[in-house]
């Protein structure tokens, strides 16, 4: 079920009414409702893959309990590896099997040996990368004795399958989300209103910004050989806003929806395009994934301790794995490696934590230096997105080659330029609101909260009418569902 679909618009109020009006006194029943509605939400795509979630839930629940009882370190390690192998095994099979087969065949034929192996017609289960990482963190945290395993199977199932964040995150940690399923949820009027505001802003980002940008980004990227360098730059910019609007929009809707049910999810995006360096960008982009890799991969590898080569190795590993997490394609790996190259100079000169605070905090405008740094970082990010969006490495290189050709200095031309101009106006409006709200958890968190009610409602209606009139309602999937 898509957040931007009529199905979800009917599903959400039904679950909300049942949750708060029918079974609001019993936590266990509320959790059971969450589990059932999450399975319906997921099964709407393909009910067959529900079995994967259920299997993963059962395995990690029992491994968690066994880890508690087991004192023998070897056996504990064995239990952890069982969890890792099963979860990563599913992920590897569904997501990476064909990639590895193809690359093995290519590698062997390069050395003169012809091997035959069949690729499979595998459907990638939606959100598998997200819920796999969520359950993995549960097992690892119990193994590290940072978390007590739960004995409440329903609460654990609700934690694994919680529908607002099941298919595209934020990737929650058991230490943060699971305890919320044990506590009685009290309805907070202000929390729910805030949740609705965040949903509204998320829908604006997704339907008006991302889906409209997607139309032009797809047009330009899919026919890149026919366009001038200047048009290709526009294509890359459209994709830059598409991916941000799409994914952060999803996160906003997920967080807002959770608040309607009395749950608090972690912030996943903190205005990353206003970053002053790449280190800051990665502290603000897909925060739940970056911190996951930091805690479960980077730090165990030694982090930024040790010698220079170890730092370089660890940085490349974390960024390349992060790229590979997005998909079984060399373009994602290059995208990850490119970000590692951007990040390394900051790490090696120990300036990766120079920009911890919010840009131009307390001020209306950034300083010239801040503006310059922000534009440089943005430019580097846009460049890296070309690899992320391209169909393959060759496509990305051709795309870049055309950008750096003399055609960069021609007037951009593509079909539907006028409509694209309207989208550009919305991007400008969007950036303005995001800039204004950059010190909050989401852009309109504090916008107009002190205004008189009629003015506040006028603002909501304006946003909704913009979505109705200028949104793209072809039910475009969220990009991150494929990851």
């Amino acid at each position: 079920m898509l957040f931007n679909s009529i199905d979800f618009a009917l599903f959400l109020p039904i679950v909300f009414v049942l949750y708060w009006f029918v079974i609001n006194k019993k936590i266990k029943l509320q959790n059971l409702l969450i589990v059932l509605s999450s399975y319906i939400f997921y099964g709407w795509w393909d009910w067959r893959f529900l079995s994967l979630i259920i299997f993963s839930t059962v395995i990690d629940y029992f491994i968690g309990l066994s880890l508690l009882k087991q004192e023998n370190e070897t056996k504990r390690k064995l239990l952890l590896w069982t969890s890792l192998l099963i979860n990563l095994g599913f992920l590897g099979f569904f997501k990476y099997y064909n990639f590895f087969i193809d690359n093995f065949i290519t590698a062997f034929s390069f050395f003169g040996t012809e091997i035959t192996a069949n690729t499979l017609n595998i459907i990638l289960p939606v959100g598998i990368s997200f819920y796999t990482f969520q359950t993995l963190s549960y097992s690892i945290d119990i193994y590290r004795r940072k978390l007590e395993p739960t004995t409440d199977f329903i609460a654990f199932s609700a934690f694994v399958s919680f529908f607002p964040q099941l298919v595209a995150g934020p990737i929650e940690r058991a230490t943060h989300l699971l305890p919320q399923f044990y506590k009685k949820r009290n309805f907070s009027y202000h929390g729910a209103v805030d949740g609705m505001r965040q949903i509204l802003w998320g829908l604006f980002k997704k339907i008006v910004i991302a889906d409209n940008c997607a139309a032009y980004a797809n047009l330009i990227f899919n026919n890149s050989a026919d366009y001038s360098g200047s048009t290709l730059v526009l294509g890359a910019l459209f994709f830059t806003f598409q991916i941000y609007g799409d994914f952060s929009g999803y996160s906003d809707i997920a967080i807002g929806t959770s608040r309607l049910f009395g749950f608090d999810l972690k912030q996943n995006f903190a205005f990353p395009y206003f970053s002053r360096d790449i280190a800051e960008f990665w502290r603000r982009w897909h925060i739940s994934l970056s911190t996951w890799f930091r805690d479960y991969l980077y730090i165990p590898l030694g982090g930024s301790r040790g010698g220079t080569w170890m730092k370089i190795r660890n940085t490349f590993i974390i960024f390349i794995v992060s790229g590979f997490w997005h998909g079984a394609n060399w373009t994602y790996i290059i995208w990850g490696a490119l970000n590692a190259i951007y990040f390394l100079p900051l790490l090696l000169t120990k300036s990766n934590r120079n920009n911890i605070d919010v840009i131009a905090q307390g001020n209306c405008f950034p300083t010239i230096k801040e503006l310059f740094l922000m534009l440089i970082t943005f430019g580097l990010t846009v460049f890296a997105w070309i690899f992320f969006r391209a169909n393959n490495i060759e496509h990305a290189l051709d795309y870049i080659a055309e950008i750096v050709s003399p055609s960069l200095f021609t007037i951009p031309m593509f079909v539907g330029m006028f409509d694209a101009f309207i989208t550009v106006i919305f991007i400008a409006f969007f950036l303005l609101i995001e800039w204004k709200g950059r010190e909050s958890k989401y852009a309109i968190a504090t916008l107009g909260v002190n205004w008189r009610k009629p003015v506040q409602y006028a603002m909501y209606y304006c946003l909704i009418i913009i979505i109705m009139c200028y949104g793209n309602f072809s039910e475009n999937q969220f990009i991150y569902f494929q990851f």
Partner: protein
Amino acid sequence: MKKFFYKTIALCIPLLILLVLVNYFGDAARLFGNDYEKRIAQILNDGHYVTNIGNYDERLLQKELISNSNIKSDIVILGSSRTMLINAELFPESSLYNSSVSGATIEDMISIYQLYKENKKLPLKIIIGIDPWTFNDNNGQNRWLSIEEYYYRFINSSKNGSLFNFKYKELFSLSYFQSSIKMLPNVIFGDINPQVTKEKHNKMFTKLSDGSLVYDELYRTASIEIINNRIASYVEGNLYSVENFDDFSENNWRLFEKLILDMQNNEIDIEFFLAPYAPLVYKRINNENKYAMVLRTENKLRNYAITNSLKLHGSFNPTELEMDERFFYDGMHSKESGIIKIINE
């Protein structure tokens, strides 16, 4: 909790009302104003041309025209917008009626044929314009649902159809809202009232009394550069109704054969008409594997026509017909000169 719930509902109700009202009164595809088609049909049945019309339900218009006309034609054209320009002047010896509807599917052709049959107005000859998407299950066309009862009667199905769902679902559709809101000023100021005309060539497109269409001035008089741009932009995007043409629809083929058999049983002479694509578009179809079924459709139809001794005009391939860009209005619609060339070949 209740306060929040009621306030949210109170916030949503005006928006829902706005959505329904704009969709009902703006009514971009004329789903809720059947009177509009009746008015157009009245003008055409009186033997006049009609212009200043827009976004009407072409299927409902056919229903009105066939049910209420007194004329029985010798030749009827069934097909899509790609056959809509075939007019009576091409067949001076006979009377012709063009019953083409945009994006016609096999269900459309069956429904319109059934309309003729039920009204006892079957012609002597039917020219069927066949498009590749006729055999694509994923063609995305559902406009035939407006006259679905005729389709179900032809296939002897007891199903009455789901017109309610199809039509009234649109009241709550946001994409329909976006089209309807643009139409609203025209509806309010009465700018889309059908106008009787004696001229074939008008500023807006014109429906002639033989059911054929004459494009609007801007489209009709475009320079070759503009046409080339149209073709180029068409090639860049999705090809109309033949994306996701993964398999040749055996079910649609069976329906097609049933339709032909029924026509033959009613002693109707049958001819096929394949409208060509513009050269650049056909080149893409020929080069990209995902359009392989388009080529297969033509092969299959050619073999079928030979086996059953049926005449087949045209081809999807413009090179076969020696037609370059000058014979096209855009990527998929031939000019009248192109149609004359195909019919007279």
